[in-house]
């Protein structure tokens, strides 16, 4: 077990090192997030609908698209460097490869969200101070769900044409349950409602995360080998 985790960490560390060396993907994702938030601002009529009603949707649609952009990076990186074959020839277990990529993707998306959330608060004047902790909690839960399935699917599409487009089409239906849960919980948090109201959604998010991380771990070995 520790070997598994250690090897996963080796892979994740390498990915993150590369990401920080080049920074292109990270910066692009950050700029994308800022742009989407900006577009949302101009896409609404503030006199017709109160910001606070639209806010959860804006936040989560932005995070969903940013996460999807980030997902392609994981295996594209290996293909670009002609290294995927090397990973498969080595004694690295496929499970460790999945967990390593999952971890790297999570850190990447977390960074984008860490910048996106303050921007969101700034642009839409949303009061998150009191509910910051549970808000971060629900962001974490939903992100794990997105990235777990997304990492698996990104491995499925690497050898296909139009990989980025296909990934989005395949992935979106799977993002809906955590998305719904995240939006509902966020709405309650921002609306100052008691957390207990959102208990069902929290359970949904947690169940989804556990279920799909386990399923993806199980299925991943079937995706990368030739």
């Amino acid at each position, binding site marked *: 077990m520790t070997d598994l985790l250690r090897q996963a960490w*080796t892979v994740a560390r390498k990915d993150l*090192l590369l990401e920080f060396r080049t920074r292109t993907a990270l910066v692009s994702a950050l700029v994308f997030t800022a742009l989407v938030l900006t577009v949302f601002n101009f896409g609404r009529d503030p006199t017709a609908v109160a910001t606070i009603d639209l806010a959860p949707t804006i936040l989560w649609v932005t995070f969903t698209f940013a996460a999807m952009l980030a997902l392609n990076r994981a295996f594209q990186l290996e293909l670009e*460097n002609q*290294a995927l*074959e090397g990973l498969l020839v*080595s*004694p690295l277990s496929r499970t460790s490869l999945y967990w390593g990529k999952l971890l790297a993707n999570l850190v990447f998306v977390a960074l984008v969200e860490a910048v996106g959330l303050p921007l969101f608060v700034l642009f839409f004047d949303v009061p998150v101070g009191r509910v910051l902790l549970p808000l971060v909690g629900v962001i974490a839960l939903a992100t794990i769900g997105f990235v777990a399935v997304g990492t698996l699917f990104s491995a499925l599409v690497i050898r296909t044409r139009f990989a980025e487009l296909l990934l989005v089409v395949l992935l979106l239906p799977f993002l809906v349950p955590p998305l719904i849960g995240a939006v509902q919980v966020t709405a309650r948090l921002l609306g100052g409602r008691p957390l207990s109201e959102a208990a069902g959604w929290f359970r949904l998010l947690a169940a989804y995360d556990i279920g799909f991380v386990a399923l993806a771990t199980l299925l991943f070995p079937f995706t990368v*080998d030739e």
Partner: protein
Amino acid sequence: MLSAEGLRHAFGTGGERVVALDNVSFSLEAGQTLAIFGPNGAGKTTLLKVLAGLIRPDAGRATVAGGRGAIGWIGHQSHLYGHLTVRENLLFWAALYAVPAAIRASRADATLRQLGIADRAEQAVWSLSRGLAQRAAIAKALIHDPRVLLLDEPFTGLDLAAAAEFRALLARLQGAGRVVVLATHNVGEGVALATDVAFQRRGRFVHFAPRGARGPAQIADEYRRAVGEREGEGEADD
């Protein structure tokens, strides 16, 4: 130390079905170097990939003592991350190949010296010339001191001097009880090193025997007759 039993593998179906391996069986002991000659599309790369565990064959079995951790692979892909330095690459792969942390750094330095690129250790791989990058790729393959070497057209892109250097390196590596399998479409390249010779054509071994006293010219001749095509020609890509 390395064995293949009844390997069969094909790609595609129907009209595009390509038989890459057709009942290939052989075994090699420590100290043997097998040179497989065959035109492009003969299935050499597929055979190596099956030996390395990259491809699961439709039928048959391949066993390598020590599993993946004992294999050093040199193929068409560099397996090096462009934006990492040579040393960072080596340390990464050493970690994956379970080289103990305490000796990783020294092993990396030793391997770099062995390949004559110790002065490039801190250079990013993308900035290396082709020849140096290839040496770095070889260093990556050797970092974990593999018992088995699988080489797929390793002379591609090497100029005469580099090829001679590589042959010298291989000769040194051959000695210490290793098994080397070298696949190439150019008879001249691998013959001198080989203890055993095989010709592969359309997935089958049409010849497999110890090299004995045969020289390059003789083997090239036999190859031409056995495979029925001139060297370098071939069918589809592997």
